[in-house]
């Protein structure tokens, strides 16, 4: 761990819970305002259930706030409001698609959000110290692998839109990959904390870059194989990319060695090429990306419809958007889930798109800030992993939807319709808040300030 500077040691973070409450009220205004705007835009009147809807949203947000106030008083004050704003905006946009398609997914999503907030509070209350997670390194690793394998199990696994990433239990459907994401971060963090020295110190220097030893390549090769496996057997390009990128980032942060990035990038390129050669699904995606216009319209296979309609929608939205309820986002297939960013771009314009991108950027920034100021390795790695995972996920899905990179199936965190994703992301936020609470909390006053030796001893003891 880098030695904190003297100034940082004496800096005491304020709790800033009042600021959080103020930002939360703004976030609530975004959510309820957007909901009302959707009603006005589509039907010309404010939705009849605006009071009960807004009330419920307020209850959820205030509950989360009170929980933070009580069990994580020093936690970052910006994270929760951003998440609340994104979740509220997502609900409004899903409601907007509901009105166009005549179903009621928004209500369902509100229930999922409720479960998400309950788990958020539960995580904060039960997980009083994030370092406890290190105990579950292998347990959560095993759980993650089981979850990832579940969709392959006959009977409960189900192929949706070409990807076998769903499990069905009765009427409930669930995307275990989203939960596996959290578990994998915990596993990686726990593993790397233990093995970082071995991974970092031994190695050869080739062309200015420290390359790791062959025997240390084991974990990254294993992760590479797992990622390829997900791709090959589940046709889930997005998750495969996410897990591999996530692991690479955490490995790099843990070992501080750029050599791992070289190895990782090489594996990524080789893996991409191999899958392009041998997996039709991947080839299809690339071809769709390279000439989407050949896959749109009558006389073609029309596979590019969702990409093209998203681009049309975003162009149609222009700088300030058509206004909520006044565009035609129902033209985009899956506008309420994977392609929700297109719907936002159409109705809220470039202004809305950039705002959403900034909000995600801020979440990642707050997560990495928590990592920077965290006083322990596991906290740093967890926060980096969770923040990095979110960054990669947003890039992969938004980049795919906006035709920056080939399209892969991932949900847009907090915005997309989908219970597993929403719930998992609320838990991620809870863990991030827990880490930032620990990092921002003033050190217990166990030493006399002028005794520098004592002080460093204390820091070591904290580990």
């Amino acid at each position: 761990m880098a030695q904190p500077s003297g100034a940082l040691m004496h800096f005491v973070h304020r709790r800033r819970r009042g600021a959080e409450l103020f930002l939360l009220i703004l976030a609530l205004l975004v959510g309820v305002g957007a909901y009302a705007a959707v009603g006005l835009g589509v039907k010309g009147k404010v939705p009849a259930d605006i009071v009960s809807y807004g009330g419920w949203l307020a209850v959820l947000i205030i509950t989360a706030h009170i929980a933070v106030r009580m069990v994580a008083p020093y936690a970052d004050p910006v994270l929760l409001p951003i998440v609340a704003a994104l979740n509220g905006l997502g609900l409004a946009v899903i409601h907007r698609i509901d009105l166009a398609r005549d179903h009621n997914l928004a209500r369902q999503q509100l229930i999922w959000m409720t479960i998400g907030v309950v788990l958020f509070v539960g995580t904060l209350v039960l997980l009083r110290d994030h370092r406890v997670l290190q105990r579950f390194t292998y347990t959560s690793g095993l759980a993650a692998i089981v979850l990832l394998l579940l969709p392959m199990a006959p009977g409960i696994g189900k192929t949706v839109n070409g990807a076998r990433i769903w499990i069905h239990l009765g009427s409930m459907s669930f995307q275990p990959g989203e939960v596996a994401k959290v578990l994998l971060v915990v596993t990686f963090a726990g593993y790397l904390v233990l093995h970082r020295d071995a991974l970092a110190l031994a190695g050869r220097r080739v062309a200015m870059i420290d390359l790791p030893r062959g025997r240390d390549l084991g974990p990254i090769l294993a992760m590479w194989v797992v990622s390829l496996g997900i791709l090959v057997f589940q046709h889930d390009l997005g998750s495969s990319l996410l897990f591999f990128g996530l692991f690479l980032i955490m490995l790099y942060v843990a070992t501080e060695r750029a050599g791992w990035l070289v190895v990782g990038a090489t594996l990524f390129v080789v893996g991409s090429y191999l899958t392009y050669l041998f997996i039709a699904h991947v080839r299809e995606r690339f071809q769709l990306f390279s000439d989407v216009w050949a896959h749109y319209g009558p006389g073609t296979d029309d596979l590019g419809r969702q990409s093209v309609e998203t681009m049309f929608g975003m162009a149609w939205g222009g700088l300030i958007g058509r206004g909520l309820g006044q565009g035609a986002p129902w033209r985009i297939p899956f506008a309420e889930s994977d392609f929700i960013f297109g719907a936002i771009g159409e109705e809220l314009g470039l202004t809305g798109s950039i705002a959403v991108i900034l909000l995600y950027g801020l979440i990642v920034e707050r997560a990495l800030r928590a990592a920077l100021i965290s006083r322990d390795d596991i906290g740093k790695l967890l926060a980096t992993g969770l923040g990095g995972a979110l960054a990669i996920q947003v890039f992969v899905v938004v980049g795919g939807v906006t035709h920056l990179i080939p399209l892969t199936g991932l949900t847009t965190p907090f915005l997309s319709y989908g219970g597993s994703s929403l719930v998992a992301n609320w838990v991620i936020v809870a863990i991030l808040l827990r880490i930032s609470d620990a990092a921002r909390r003033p050190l217990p006053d166990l030493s006399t300030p002028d005794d520098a030796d004592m002080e460093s001893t204390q820091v070591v003891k904290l580990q």
Partner: protein
Amino acid sequence: MNKPIRTVSIFCLLLFLALAVNATYLQYYHANALDDRTDNGRVATATFSRERGAIMVGGTAIAESVPTKDQYKYQRVYHKPFLYAPITGWYTFGNETGMERAQNSFLSGEDDSLFVNRLVDLVNGSSTKGGNVLLTIDPAAQKAAYDGLRKLGADVQGAVVALQPNTGKILAMVSLPTYDPNKLADHDFKKANAYASKLSKMKSQPLLNRAIQTTLAPGSTFKVVTASAAVGTGRYNANTLMPAGDTYTLPQSHSVVHNDVLSGCSNSKIPLIQALEFSCNTAFAPLAVKVGASAMHQQAEGFGFNQRYLDSDQLPGQAVSQYPAGEDAPGTALSGFGQDSVTATPLQMAMVTAGIANHGVVMKPYLVDSQQSPTSFETLKQFPSTQLSQATSSSTASEITRMMVATVQSGTATPAAIPGIQVAGKTGTAQSGLTNPDGSEVPPYAWFIGFAPAQSPKVAVAVMLQHVDQPTDEIHGGTLGGPIAKAVMEAVLNPHG
């Protein structure tokens, strides 16, 4: 571990920056290109759901958008649909024709001149409205032309064009058979498509705007062009004696040309004015040869042959009237009375007569008088009248006028005479040169061109009858076309009936 965390944050920053740049590209820089794609259903629907501007004639709308309850919000409605269909065309999802196409960007509100309106609409939160287009059409002349054609029978195929000689304004443009654009603009697209395919399968081609899209042999009306070329050489005037007779043998050939009219042409030498009055083919065929292929070609082009003059923002699809360059002697002889390789649209022949009426200056024909703001009704653009060409000198024009007046007074064009007003005119009865599938000859086309008053012309008319349900020997430009031209001229000259 903080150093790599900082590196990771820069990496994440780059990822988000890439997303933001890409969103900006899509929604700002590339947005117009995406919006303009023809396969963009979103824009098409939005445009189709917009309150489109009206097409106005004489202060009343002949096409307008009225609110409906269906998903497209506005229904295009055509008033007097059959009368104006060849002009308005129709407007439906993803397709528009006629004036709806020519002025589409203004009618739909997309035009740059409506930018301020769009901005105001955007700020007010109201939806964009298209501007109104005011036509040059004189409703009385239009109705007179339509009624005149309809009187000739149910399955008449023909067209009438009337021009204001000194401006080029199109005062009337009628084409029969016609159709109901309301049925084509129906939001029940299946029904509309069925009607469209029924129309396009009909042999009489009702979707064709014969006034500008059909080129046929102009027959004897073209003698006005031949006479202009002859007088233009300086070697001829109305009284110049020229060879005529009952027959004329084409140069380098054994083919013999006859006259349609039995009296007036038989003398071996007659003055030019008499040749025009009685439409003597046997006089004009050798005259054209004497004038020469190149002078004839030049004269025809002076009136607008071989050119596209009706701009696409006026009406799309103008056919080019033909007078080929480098005709040989027999071809030139036949062209002297508007046969063989000479073809013209009714608009072209109206321009010939309007050019004579306007002292030899042919004005560029136009149909859109002005564009009007949808909100303040102020005129945003007034279309100017522009000169197309100087077809003949002023003196030549007045010499031809003299002969055309005589043609109405005592020649073949007497049916167009208006009491108290000097009318100039010329008839034409053109051999179709075609045979029916059963071997019989396709009946001739009847033409009439003229203008009035002869000394200060207010209106020039061309009438073309491609098919009339009458026996072949009853088909004459004068008897069939003359009364229609007369009615149109009267409608313009006596606006109050």
